């Protein structure tokens, strides 16, 4: 390993908020208790599709302790959505007025002096419904005769997306081998440790304070302003600690909306915490998809053309689904150079819980189909699975036609290292095999459908008299460690020790606006803003130092490890804290303030930078029972310059666990519009004893657009695992599994099917 050229970066650092968390002192929304606080509960639809005839709260209001019942009619009735630039995609009222469109949709909310009373009151609200025919599968919902879920939306087609480059027909003509497959991908629950929760407190001066579990305080400030008729700046969103998001907590949720509406009605604080079941049935989920993939290649494995059609189960509302629809089509081309590519995506409304963004944002589904099909093609043509990928791999400087330019790409190194790793493994026991999958992912989205007037990320660095640095960022720490990452970047840029940095985040009153923690954007975007702010402050300090030291102006000054010095003669200098004290005096006592911001420009349509990875999954299959065991999950990973190497491992292993769950466990059946396993007994997620060995091989690259060359690391690794697992099954058994998650029963059935086919031939 080469010596670390950084003082703070590229080291193992424990999270800056670690002490507060492990000692239980961290205040999550669940812990917030305000004087006079009431408790809210939400009445939810038992029907997948029904017209609301009437809602009568009379009996509920008679229950002692009940303070208010609100329905959609007590609200402004605004149809909201996160795609604010596109009014037709703003389709969710949260407290619905005319119709319910999925089981679990909120129809009324109660505030009472205890949670128990609020819950009892729900049973006393009399809702009359006219039950309507429903449809919960996109392939049914798109048919002419299907029930119409949103008025005027023909065939329930909510959004379509088209991506195309090259001459697809001609490229297929050139192909010497063509194959087509259909795949079916399931949903997945975000399963945050902390369920959705809000405490809203409205006061008579028309100010609303909202403590909530969010990935983006700024989004929620703006979204609440829109539905409540308040000015954005009169709403303060506070989220000091958040117990996970995974893509599920940056749209407006019912806890935020209903608690705010109740609080505004009563001028009292109202707390709503979702039960685990509510989090399962009435939030949003990973998007289930049907995938058709037709691929043409040369006999030597050169990729010619791909044509893909996708139908996604949108559920009742749009949410972030339009982005997932685009990104699944985009990443389905990844990480390869297709001469011609065509993608048509259809997001179809159904009467089931809405689908939306979830870690990987459409890419895990895309890779499951693409990467397995590549192995099947390689097998048919007698090609090596590494070689076929190497032949077509993205490289630095490649332009995805009309979409993106790749600023840095370590994919070939990833393939080399995984090839070596597989060779070193040697011969495996029977029924065990290694499957691989390559993938890439974005480092933050460029798209601004939210129509934010603010910079994508901003940071303010304030240096106090004692050298302590207050770093204010709008970036949101949701457990992924962004406060630590940003503190490290700030310390490195300023040249001070990490313990000098105090990070302030999760409070819209005190932190600059930032789009928040989604799409793997914070390390790059908030990182660049932080670096810029720190450098601004540093420049001011060095101006003072330069005047004070009186060196020839040809000398450069710098700060490193709290030592302000002449770069040419590093022993000459002074302590940073002493310099700050003097510098403040020179500024008439003002603190030193540096400002930074970042908004991507001229970086294509999708993202300023892309991570790359190749993962190898070693799995064993019990061919009689169909049981899968993942023995090892090793990833060669290019995230540019690692910032916190400890945090990086946490992110990558966490992604592997979630992705493996998507691969073989996290089945989320919906029957007649109803989620069949809304609890942690019946919904299976990987627990500590089930976690496979994980190994990370870090690939050294430098991303010109990232702070110190860094790119994303938290999300992309959710993409390859299910595909790699499918490939391991293929190489161990010859089975081609076209449905995710791959349940053990499917494997047994596939064996039976194969036997039958073998018998008839």
């Amino acid at each position, binding site marked *: 390993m080469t010596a670390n050229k950084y003082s703070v970066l590229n080291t193992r650092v424990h999270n800056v908020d670690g002490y507060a968390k492990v000692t239980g002192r961290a205040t999550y929304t669940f812990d917030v208790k305000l004087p006079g606080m009431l408790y809210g509960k939400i009445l939810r639809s038992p029907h997948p599709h029904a017209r609301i005839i009437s809602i009568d709260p009379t009996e509920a209001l008679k229950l002692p302790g009940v303070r208010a019942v609100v329905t959609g009619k007590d609200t402004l009735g605004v149809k909201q959505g996160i795609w604010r630039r596109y009014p037709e995609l703003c389709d969710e009222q949260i407290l619905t007025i005319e119709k319910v469109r999925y089981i679990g949709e909120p129809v009324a909310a109660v505030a009472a002096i205890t949670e*128990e009373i609020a*819950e009892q009151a729900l049973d006393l609200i009399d809702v009359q419904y006219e039950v309507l025919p429903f449809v919960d599968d996109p392939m049914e919902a798109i048919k002419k005769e299907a029930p119409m879920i949103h008025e005027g939306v023909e065939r329930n087609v909510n959004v379509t997306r088209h991506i195309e480059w090259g001459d697809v027909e001609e490229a297929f003509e050139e192909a010497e081998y063509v194959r087509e497959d259909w795949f079916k991908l399931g949903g997945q629950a975000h399963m945050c440790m902390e369920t959705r929760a809000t405490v809203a407190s409205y006061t008579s001066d028309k100010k609303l304070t909202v403590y909530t579990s969010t990935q983006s305080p700024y989004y929620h400030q703006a979204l609440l302003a829109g539905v409540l008729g308040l000015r954005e700046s009169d709403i303060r969103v506070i989220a000091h600690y958040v117990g996970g998001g995974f893509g599920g907590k940056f749209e407006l949720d019912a806890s935020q909306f209903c608690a705010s509406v109740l609080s505004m009605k009563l001028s009292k604080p109202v707390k709503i915490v979702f039960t685990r079941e509510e989090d399962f049935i009435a939030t949003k989920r990973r998007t289930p998809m049907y995938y058709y993939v037709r691929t043409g290649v040369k006999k030597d494995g050169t990729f010619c053309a791909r044509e893909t059609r996708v139908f996604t189960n949108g559920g009742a509302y749009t949410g972030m689904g339009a982005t997932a629809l685009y990104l699944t089509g985009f990443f389905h081309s990844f990480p390869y150079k297709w001469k011609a590519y065509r993608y048509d995506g259809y997001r179809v409304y159904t009467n089931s819980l809405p689908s939306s963004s979830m870690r990987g944002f459409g890419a895990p589904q895309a890779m499951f189909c693409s990467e397995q099909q590549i192995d099947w093609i390689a097998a048919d043509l007698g090609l090596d699975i590494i070689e076929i990928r190497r032949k077509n791999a993205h490289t630095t400087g490649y332009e995805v036609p009309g979409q993106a330019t790749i600023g840095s790409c370590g994919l070939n190194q990833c393939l080399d290292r995984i090839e070596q790793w597989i060779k070193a493994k040697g011969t495996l026991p029977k029924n065990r095999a290694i499957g691989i999958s390559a993938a890439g992912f974005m480092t933050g989205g460029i798209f601004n459908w939210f129509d934010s007037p603010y910079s994508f990320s901003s940071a303010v660095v304030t240096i106090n008299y004692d050298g302590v640095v207050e770093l204010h960022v709008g970036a949101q720490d949701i457990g992924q460690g962004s406060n630590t990452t940003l503190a490290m970047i700030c310390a490195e840029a300023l040249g001070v020790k990490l313990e000098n940095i105090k990070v302030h985040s999760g409070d819209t009153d005190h932190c600059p606006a930032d789009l928040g923690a989604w799409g793997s954007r914070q390390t790059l975007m908030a990182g660049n803003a932080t670096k810029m702010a720190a450098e601004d402050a540093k420049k001011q300090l060095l101006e003072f130092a330069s005047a004070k030291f009186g060196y020839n102006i040809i000398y450069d000054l710098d700060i490193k490890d709290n030592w302000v010095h002449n770069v040419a003669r590093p022993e000459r200098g002074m302590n940073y804290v002493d310099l700050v004290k003097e510098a403040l005096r020179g500024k008439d006592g003002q603190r030193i303030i540096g400002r930074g911001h970042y908004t991507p420009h001229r970086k294509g349509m999708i993202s300023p930078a892309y991570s790359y990875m190749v993962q190898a999954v070693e799995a064993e299959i019990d061919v009689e029972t169909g049981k899968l065991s993942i023995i090892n999950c090793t990833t060669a990973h290019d995230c540019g310059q690692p910032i916190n190497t400890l945090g990086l491992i946490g992110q990558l292993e966490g992604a592997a666990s979630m992705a493996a769950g998507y691969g073989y*466990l996290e089945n989320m059946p919906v029957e007649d519009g109803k989620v069949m396993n809304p609890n942690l007994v019946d919904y299976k997620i990987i627990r500590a004893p089930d976690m496979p060995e994980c190994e990370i091989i870090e690939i050294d690259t430098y991303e010109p657009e990232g702070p110190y060359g860094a790119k994303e690391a938290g999300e992309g690794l959710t993409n390859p695992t299910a595909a790699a697992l499918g490939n391991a099954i293929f190489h161990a058994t010859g089975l081609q599994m076209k449905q995710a998650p791959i349940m053990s029963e499917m494997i047994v059935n596939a064996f039976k099917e194969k036997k039958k086919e073998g018998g008839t031939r």
Partner: protein
Amino acid sequence: MIHDFTYLRPGNVKEALAMLAQHRDGAKIICGGQSLLIIMRQGLVVTEYLVDIKGLDELNCLIYDSRAGLKIGATTTHRTIEKSRLVKEKYPVLVAMEEKLASIQVRNWGTIGGNLAHADAAGDPAPVLIALNATVTIASSAGGRSVPLEEFYPGLFETVLSPDELVTEVLVPPPPAHTATVYQKFNLLESDQGIVAVAVSLSVSDAGICQDARIVLGNAAPIPIRAKNTEKLLIGNKLNEEIFTKAGETAGEEADPVADIHASEDYRRHLIAVLTRRMTKEAWEQACQV
């Protein structure tokens, strides 16, 4: 949300039984709470009184006697059984079963009496204990009785207990000579409940013949059931691969499984067949060696 209840804490078994006799249907017994609290939270159980027997030391014991066998007090935790050297030596199958019962956190709280009385067909201890021919000792303020565990479950989530009765102990007879008992469940997650489970106990005569067989299927019917046709196939025979396979098939046929989101009925029968074949073979090989 858990509905309000009155919490009662008896000082001894006698007091506990008096409370049960007084409140009868209005009372529920709680110890580790690992099963009861879940269904109370789901609103499936609403009770006026909760009688907490956790502190009753009389019920917390593990005693082995070479004639009477193993006595496990009802409030003995799963973790205690799992970590007992005595149990490990005399009934290794119980330790193996406990090691895979839920998580360590659950095993630290959950008790053997509570588990058996909860009567979940997917519970781990019942199939193993039925294979070991265990009996349950039951007390009430009017007296006591003893019931073979095999007869303890009349139906789905039901026991023969009347409202004033309390399980006080489980008695496991001393293992007969040349006998091996093995257990395996099928699940997707380590230590999860079994989608199906099979316990097999085989005894081999000096002549190398299968003398006795007890095969118990878990989560294969509304209650843990003996696979008696399968047992008949084995008894009186020298076992071989062919018989193991036939045993599996027979067990798959005599099971009465349901379909749910975790497995279809067919898949459950298939798994029972595979597991029964594997476990019968394993038990046979072990029994031939002891």
